[in-house]
């Protein structure tokens, strides 16, 4: 069990008391938790199949050919069809349990019909309708959310690790090292990440990792400024001098003494970094420089939606609403964190 110091506990209590932020966080965590198990909720694969006395759990088991259920084809089983078939056969003990939304984000939900957007139809399980390629919009929103959050957290981790490390080193060592790295950062931060992404993705097939690497590579610099000044400030305090006198090396001083005292600065940035990352990925997908098709993404939905604004308003409104909700929640959390760690109310040095 991690024991939090009284100061942190105080901040946590303060955060909890800000209802809007607190409940936003709860909502976000629930959404994230659901997104982690999205396969159980929104999926074209069945949760459970019982066929001729055997139980199957296709969700995470992977590919089961149709031949397994005597469907006469070697490709992946269409579980909705299988369900209909077994139900038609009546009381044979065979059954299929489908997830709440029985559609995957990639599949054509209207085989045999034109590829065109279809309006929401709860009876068919398309709560938010389908897109221009007959794919379920809700499924794409849900899986798009997951990609956006993976990207956002990956982005945050990358930016913070790099930014904190270099910022602390600059602040701690100061002098020539600080000067040199600052100049390098100034040069580096003048390269526009958007252009780099556009160039990179137009010559190679992008993937989440590549997008992350590029965006992180051009976004970590801002964090160094805050960490540098915070470290400078802390470094001048007596406890740092004391640690140094006791023989602690730079690594120990920075990471066990200075960092915990500067962390409140960083914490306030987290939600805004997350929001920024989601927007960035959506923008890239919207422009066609993001994840390759057919990856589900909000940007891709928005792009489709703007092109079918009049004929299929449910596409753009779904993606837009999802984005607004998530970004609003993140912003509420961010506000609450900022208020909770505001040093004006909690400083020890009155």
């Amino acid at each position, binding site marked *: 069990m991690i024991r939090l110091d009284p100061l942190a506990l105080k901040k946590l209590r303060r955060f909890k008391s800000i209802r809007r932020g607190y409940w936003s966080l709860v909502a976000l965590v629930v959404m994230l938790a659901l997104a982690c198990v999205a396969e159980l909720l929104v999926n074209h694969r069945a949760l459970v199949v019982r066929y001729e006395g055997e139980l199957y759990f296709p969700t995470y088991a*992977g*590919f089961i*050919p149709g031949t397994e259920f005597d469907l006469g*084809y*070697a*490709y*992946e089983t269409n579980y909705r069809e299988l369900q209909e078939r077994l139900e038609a056969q009546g009381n044979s003990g065979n059954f299929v349990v489908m997830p709440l939304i029985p559609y995957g984000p*990639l*599949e*054509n939900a209207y085989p*045999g*019909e*034109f*590829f*065109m957007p279809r309006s929401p139809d709860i009876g068919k399980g398309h709560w938010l309708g389908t897109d*221009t*390629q007959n794919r379920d919009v809700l499924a794409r929103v849900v899986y798009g959310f997951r990609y956006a959050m993976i990207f956002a957290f990956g982005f945050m981790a990358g930016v913070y690790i790099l930014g904190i490390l270099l910022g602390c080193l600059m602040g701690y060592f100061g002098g020539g090292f600080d000067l040199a790295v600052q100049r390098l950062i100034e040069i580096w931060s003048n390269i526009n990440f958007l252009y780099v992404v*556009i160039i990179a993705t*137009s*010559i190679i*097939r992008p993937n989440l990792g590549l997008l992350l690497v590029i965006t992180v590579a051009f976004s970590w610099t801002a964090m160094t400024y805050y960490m540098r000044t915070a470290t400078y400030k802390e470094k001048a305090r007596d406890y740092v001098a004391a640690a140094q006198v006791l023989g602690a090396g730079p690594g120990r001083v920075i990471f066990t003494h200075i960092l915990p005292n500067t962390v409140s600065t960083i914490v306030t940035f987290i939600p805004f970094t997350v929001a920024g990352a989601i927007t960035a990925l959506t923008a890239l997908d919207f*422009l*066609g420089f993001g994840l*390759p*098709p*057919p990856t589900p993404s909000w940007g891709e939905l928005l792009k489709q939606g*703007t*092109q*079918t*604004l*009049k*004929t299929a308003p449910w596409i753009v409104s779904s993606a837009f609403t999802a984005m607004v909700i998530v970004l609003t929640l993140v912003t509420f959390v961010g506000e609450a964190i900022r208020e909770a760690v505001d040093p004006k109310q909690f400083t020890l040095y009155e």
Partner: protein
Amino acid sequence: MNRHRTNPGSRPTALLLLGAALFATACGEGGEDAVEAYDNTEEVEAYYAANAEFFREASPDDLPDDLAWEDGSDLPELGSPEAVRGGELRARIQDFPRTLRTMGPDANSSFRPYILDDMTVRLAHLHPDIAGTHRYYPGLAEAWAMDSDGQRVYVRLDPDARWSDGNPVTSDDMRFMFYFFQSPHIQDPWYNNWYGKDVNYTDLTVYDERTFSIGLVDARPNMAALVLELYPKPREFHRDFGPDFVERYQWRFTPTTGPFVLTDDELEGIRTDRTGVSLERLEDWWADSKRNWRYRYNPDRIQLTVIRDTPKAFEAALAGELDFIGGMGLAEYWYDQLPDDHPLVERGLIHKTTFYNDVPRPTYGLYINAAQPILGDRDVRLGIHYASNWQLVLDQYFRGDYVRMNTTADGYGDMTHPDIRARAFDLAKAAEHFDEAGFTQRGPDGILVNEQGQRLSFTLTTGYESLAPVLNILRQEALKAGLELQVEILDSATAWKKVQEKNHDIAFTAFGVGVELYPRYWEFYHSANAYDVPYLEDGSTPNPDRSPNPQTNNFLSTAIPELDALIDAYDTSDDLDEMREMAYRMEEILYADGSFVPGFVTPFYRTAYWRWMRFPEGFDVRFSGAPTEYNLYWIDESARTETMEARRGDGTFPRSVTSYDQWRTTP
């Protein structure tokens, strides 16, 4: 690569689709500022003298007496006598032109047709209603004569022919044209090669100011096209043509033989205002009363507005700001955005037309790179054929409007193989072929693997972002066969480069093709364009150390000795019947080889336009690819006012949704 096969100026190029350039063009504001005076008279004369065997002088007496002069006067005339001159065409361009040059860097843009391709008058033009034997009607030439034995075409220029700056068109302009295209200053190697000495043309012999002849390297069935589709370059205007051509001529409007020009005011205007370009019609165009020209090019003005996105252009068109409503080729726009029961269509304000044309079809399909190790196995390629569900794309994405492409060269009339049918989607046959190639087991993700553990997975590269749904559909269907296609959408220029360098597995692309008498094979299927040293010394065993030949159009890396021999014979034949036999045989070989998966053919063009746009009876000509291509339309400006008033109120006119299938070639 000194090869020659087609009409001048139509090289096989990437078929660009909606290439929304993201980077705004930073056009040089140069203009006439600080341009040094230059006079090339001496160097041009010296060049002619140094190449006297190409630029020949002769006297009118040297003309053979027995020439059979033709002038196309027996052909039906183009256009409608009902056409009315006047009015303004309002159209859209996707990007502001990066230059007003028609060759050199950045010149091949969507704007060029307005100053060159659709507008300039060539020596003579292919009659667009007559297929089979291609016939020509006069342009700058008053008459011409073929001498097949001497491999020479004689041309007599029309004495009325004038440049838009008032100078007459003379043999000297033709001579300068060769100088111009042979010059390295234009920075366009393709032209340098095509017009180079002894590539296609042996000489230009000038008899007098209006009479000349052009000698050809080979006697080919298309020798008329090789000469008559040439167009001169104005000698006077190019007095200062030199090493700085690209910059100096960047924003100059070259005098044209066509009716539309950019006025000096407009040239001044576009220096600061890049929202559009307008072209004015000459008041006294030299061809105004000439047969085949008098009922065409009817508007007084063409106003082109830059609108980057198709959806925005669509909205602007529905607001009446554009005369044609774009995007109609796409099922989504034709059926969903502007359906037949749309109020504006229903009320007869906007008319919709489907026009079936008869032209060589762009070669949309999957280009499998046989040089890649696994794809070198013919069974894998055939498996990919059977695993590609084009019928689904045609029926459900294109809604049954497009048809399947069958050969590598559809739309050439009887030069197209009549019996070959593309392989249909068939999972059993796909499995059979993949099995044969050693891909027998499905992995845990349902993708086939062979004994070495290699997955049956390939990258599918394309530069057509707007056709991504097609690839998604193919991808989902191919999964059923245990084949994984990883869709890779690149910037169109990058994709083209990647494929030209043979770095692809499978590419989805197409070649734009012009109207030609017979298809070409050398660029696309000859081993010389696939590998540096395709075979060992015996001339047929594949060379194990061969490496791909980059920057060529053999995207399939095809190297088949039998095919090479046929192509070589085809390219030197002067007998169309013999060539037809060979073309059929070549198609059969290519079909068996299975490296090209034919995609789709659009057998028509579709368009929607406001009711003030008027068209001749029959709507358009057989070879037309767009309603404005042959400039047969005219504009009823009084109907425009009336229609816009009706649009604001609730006026109605007779509804018009039409289809013209007089040239239809597909079922």
